[in-house]
């Protein structure tokens, strides 16, 4: 398929039209269908939550949007000030809920550290860490997670994770996203609001979210926009420059971690283009030519996209029912929930 030459401009977005369309859907679903009075969302200081917040304010008015700032022990020092910057810019009501105490109570940090100690015995509570994947462009190797740990003296240790250690670390850190979602629904319940999720298309398609954590929401207004388009929307909405130019991070591990180290293995702008090309039926050779990369490199990324989609099927799947619900009304409600 070659409906137009492939290049970075394929992701150009009519932001004014798209913002109006998203606003209409937010008003229709939240106010009329769900009969809720507004939207709750968590702000991370990143571009996705900032854009969703701005679109919600544009659609509903600032008095119907409630923002939560939920940093924790491992959050970047930038997280809280940037979150405060955007909620002040939007002029919405907010609450600062530091979730570190809840995470201590669930033993999130201790469980994670115990899992790391199975591969780095000297790892202590005052160490910092992250888990990382190798890049996808330069070889056909399967990509296995490693843990990178930094001692208080600054010594860096990197070692491949065992399967059990990998699962243990991810399971423990998933407490963070699930705790935040629990608090979002607490505030939504007390205000009679719904909850907005903030994934972009790249995250939604590739399963870069925690099931029943940041994957849970009543509406996901930018889940159809590529990350590049979210940045364009941020500029169209005239959000603060520090938000518009902030690179994506996971803000989940105590060492700084880019999203491509943890999940995508390519910078977001390149992942966007490959995913767009795949979705629109461009060949690997066409995508490669448009991006200045080799065809075999794009073929590796396409295989990686397919592999992640297979894993994401479980994350997207609603609960399995043995029989359809008896009434179409109940079905419709379940579809809304799913």
């Amino acid at each position, binding site marked *: 398929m070659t409906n137009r030459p492939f290049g970075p401009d394929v992701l150009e977005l009519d932001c004014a039209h798209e913002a109006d369309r998203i606003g209409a859907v937010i008003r229709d679903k939240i106010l009329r269908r769900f009969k809720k009075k507004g939207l709750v969302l968590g702000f991370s200081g990143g571009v996705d939550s900032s854009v969703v917040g701005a679109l919600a304010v544009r659609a509903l008015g600032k008095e119907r949007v409630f923002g939560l700032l939920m940093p924790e022990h491992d959050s970047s020092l930038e997280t809280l000030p940037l979150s405060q910057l955007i909620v002040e810019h939007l002029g919405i009501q907010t609450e600062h809920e530091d979730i570190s105490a809840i995470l201590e109570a669930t033993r999130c940090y201790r469980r994670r550290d115990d899992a790391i100690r199975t591969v780095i015995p000297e790892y202590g509570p005052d160490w910092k860490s992250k888990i990382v994947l190798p890049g996808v462009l330069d070889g056909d190797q399967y*990509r296995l997670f490693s843990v990178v740990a930094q001692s208080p003296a600054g010594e860096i240790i990197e070692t491949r994770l065992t*399967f059990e250690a990998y699962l243990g670390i991810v399971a423990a850190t998933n407490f963070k996203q699930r705790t935040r979602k629990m608090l979002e629904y607490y505030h939504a319940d007390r205000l009679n609001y719904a909850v907005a999720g903030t994934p972009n298309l790249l995250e939604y398609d590739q399963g870069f979210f925690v099931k029943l954590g940041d994957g849970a929401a009543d509406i996901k207004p930018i889940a159809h926009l590529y990350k590049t388009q979210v940045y364009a929307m941020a500029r169209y909405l005239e959000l603060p420059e520090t938000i518009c130019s902030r690179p994506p991070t996971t803000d989940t591990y105590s060492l700084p971690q880019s999203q491509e180290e943890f999940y995508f293995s390519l910078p977001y702008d390149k992942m966007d283009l490959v995913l767009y090309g795949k979705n629109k039926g461009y060949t690997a050779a066409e995508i490669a030519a448009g991006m200045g990369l080799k065809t075999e490199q794009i073929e590796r990324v396409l295989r990686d996209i397919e592999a992640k989609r297979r*894993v994401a099927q479980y994350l997207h799947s609603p609960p399995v029912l043995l029989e359809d619900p008896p009434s179409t009304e109940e079905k419709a409600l379940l579809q809304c929930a799913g």
Partner: protein
Amino acid sequence: MNYTTEVRDFIISFFLFGDAAALQDDTSFLSSGIVDSTGVMELIMHLEQEFDIKVEPEEMIPDNLDSVNKVAQFIAGKTTDACHPLIRAVPMEA
């Protein structure tokens, strides 16, 4: 030594829960959906523990790990390799 049977039995019991119908010795694990990306981690760990080998990052490629035949050939190559730890443990003076 031929490791095909051992590898096939492991894949059938661990990833297919005893259902061997979908598995030929040249079936691609990833393309057929038998093993996903986390399954590859499990497969490599099993090989390292069961056969006392170390799978190096550059060896973690489909040519070595994406079918029963490929895995069996890979193990055979590793276990006859002079660098294999079991072989290195044999006293050279003998």
